[in-house]
């Protein structure tokens, strides 16, 4: 019941945010200096040509009308057509969405699967060399840029070792093993920073929990150290880690753009980048919007997950 109420509140708030997001996205592209029509036709174009383009794109109408036009299109899935490629923006995005999704998920899985056990070990062996090693590795991990990792990984594993392909993507529907080969390096590059943050947070959170009152009480109940750590402390320690995960999603999504470029990975990150390079206004609007929406929804999912794990969230609503 508590969960349902909380979820409902958050979803309602979400709509407000999404409207704001769409307004910002739209406004963003409208501050491009220079005339969009000129961009398309080129500086050599005649006035009539420019006028035709303007009519076509509705550029003569007041801004809020343009916005409403665009927004109503978005709601039915029509994001306009790409200036550069000509295809509908929605189609372009949908083509590339699966690849990016696979990448992002893989990066997260890689990060979580490695970092949590590492963080737990570091916490339990606090101040030993194991801890020191893990903490240092984590620290360096958060300091190196993802694209640098990407390049290094390509260098080592793709060029020298030839184990993984340096670019490209194959859909799991076609060849799952191939997918795995193609996403390993990018997923690791993308996930490395996340992994480092999660390790640090797991470690410090667990150390903090082990100092709590309920841990002392658990000791006084005669419980073994293993039981105390795994049944009591870890569950509570995980909450701040989840918060950090939510926070780091922001950088994960940003990293998608960079990593896809490094690995010539055909996802929406790369698409967005190309759109920006080409000043392809509808495509920019479409990709940035999609990014923002997915990001916002992911944050919501993380918050709901947190509410599931922490019974105190959303309580106190009679």
């Amino acid at each position: 019941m508590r969960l349902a109420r909380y979820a409902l509140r958050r979803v309602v708030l979400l709509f407000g945010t999404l409207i704001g997001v769409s307004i910002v996205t739209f406004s963003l592209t409208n501050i491009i200096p220079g005339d969009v029509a000129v961009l398309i036709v080129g500086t050599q174009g005649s006035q009539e040509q420019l006028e035709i383009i303007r009519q076509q794109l509705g550029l003569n109408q007041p801004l809020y009308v343009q916005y409403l036009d665009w927004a109503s299109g978005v709601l039915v899935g029509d994001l306009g057509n790409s200036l550069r490629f000509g295809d509908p923006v929605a189609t372009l995005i949908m083509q590339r969405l699966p690849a990016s999704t696979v990448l992002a998920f893989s990066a997260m899985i890689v990060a979580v699967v490695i970092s949590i056990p590492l963080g737990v070990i570091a916490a339990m062996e606090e101040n030993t060399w194991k801890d020191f090693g893990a903490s240092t590795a984590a620290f360096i991990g958060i300091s190196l840029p993802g694209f640098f990792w990407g390049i290094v990984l390509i260098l080592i594993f793709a060029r020298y070792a030839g184990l993984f392909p340096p670019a490209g993507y194959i859909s799991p529907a076609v060849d799952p093993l191939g997918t795995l080969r193609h996403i390993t390096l990018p997923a690791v590059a993308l996930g490395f920073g996340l992994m480092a943050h999660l390790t640090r947070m797991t470690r410090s959170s667990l150390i903090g929990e082990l100092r709590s009152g309920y841990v002392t009480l658990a000791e006084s109940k005669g419980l073994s150290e293993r039981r105390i750590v795994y049944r009591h402390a870890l569950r509570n320690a995980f909450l701040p880690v989840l918060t950090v995960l939510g926070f780091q999603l922001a950088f994960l999504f940003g990293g998608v753009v960079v990593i896809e470029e490094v690995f010539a990975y055909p996802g929406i990150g790369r698409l967005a980048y190309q759109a920006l390079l080409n000043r392809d206004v509808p495509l920019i609007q479409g990709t940035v919007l999609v990014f923002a929406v997915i990001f916002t929804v992911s944050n919501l999912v993380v918050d709901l997950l947190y509410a599931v794990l922490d019974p105190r969230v959303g309580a106190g609503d009679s």
Partner: protein
Amino acid sequence: MSTKYGQLDVLDDVTKRRLSGFLKQLRGNPKALIGAVMIGGLVLIALLAPLLTPEGAADATNPANRLQPPSTEHFFGTDHLGRDIFHRLLLGTRISLYVGILSVGIATVFGVSLGAIAGYVGDNIDDAIMRPMDIVMSFPPVLFALAITAILGPTLTNTIVAIGIVYIPYFARVTRSEVVSVSQEEFVSASKAVGERDRYILFAEVLPNAAAPIIVQASISMAYAILAAAALGFLGLGAQPPTPEWGLMINEAKQYITGAPWVAIFPGSAIAVTVLGFNLLGDGIRDVLDPAINTQVKSQDE
């Protein structure tokens, strides 16, 4: 030694003592120490770079000399245009620190002001300020900065502006939550009971006590800002050639990586060292300012 009371004079006695105590603790914290040393070194390099670099050395293209490995003449080797990498790195230090400080500066000034007002006044003003912040935070920061520079035009200045804008909400949030928490302390009520004006209370009583997490946030944001600037440079939407910006250097080095890896490795390491330094410093400051770790010896006589 009587202390005069007034805004400026507060910096005199009390703050000096607190500062020296704080610095002493910082010295005892290995992370902060190493971080501070690293940053200090980088600042030094940034300041001295123009002196250490012979005129035009960084831009001097020399196609005959391209892609040379590190040697005594060129410490870090040369890049694809024959330019000396070592000198370019030195100059790049200036750029990175410049970007970091300015963008974080923008974010701090605007973010802290907005967050402080939102936190102190509360209610509708709080909503009015923080909802737009939430909306800006709905965009992945790097992507947003990318979009801004792409739209405004890729220059170093726009990079700074873009990153600054993108980080404003983070500062606003941290400031707001800290201000809310400090405002609940009884000395704030005591000030009101004495008859102080709100403006005074916010700036002279609340904010100084809320400073700690903001400082930590600033240090860590510098790290992120430098990473973000490098990413933008790498994608070609930040500083433009021939600027010796580290990210851009890696971009240019990308295609030569198999034959001449040092062209990318050195700039990458430079980024890493800088970011590492700020992270260490930020972490160290956080440790020192964390009340759980600080135990003060109390007065014993009643």
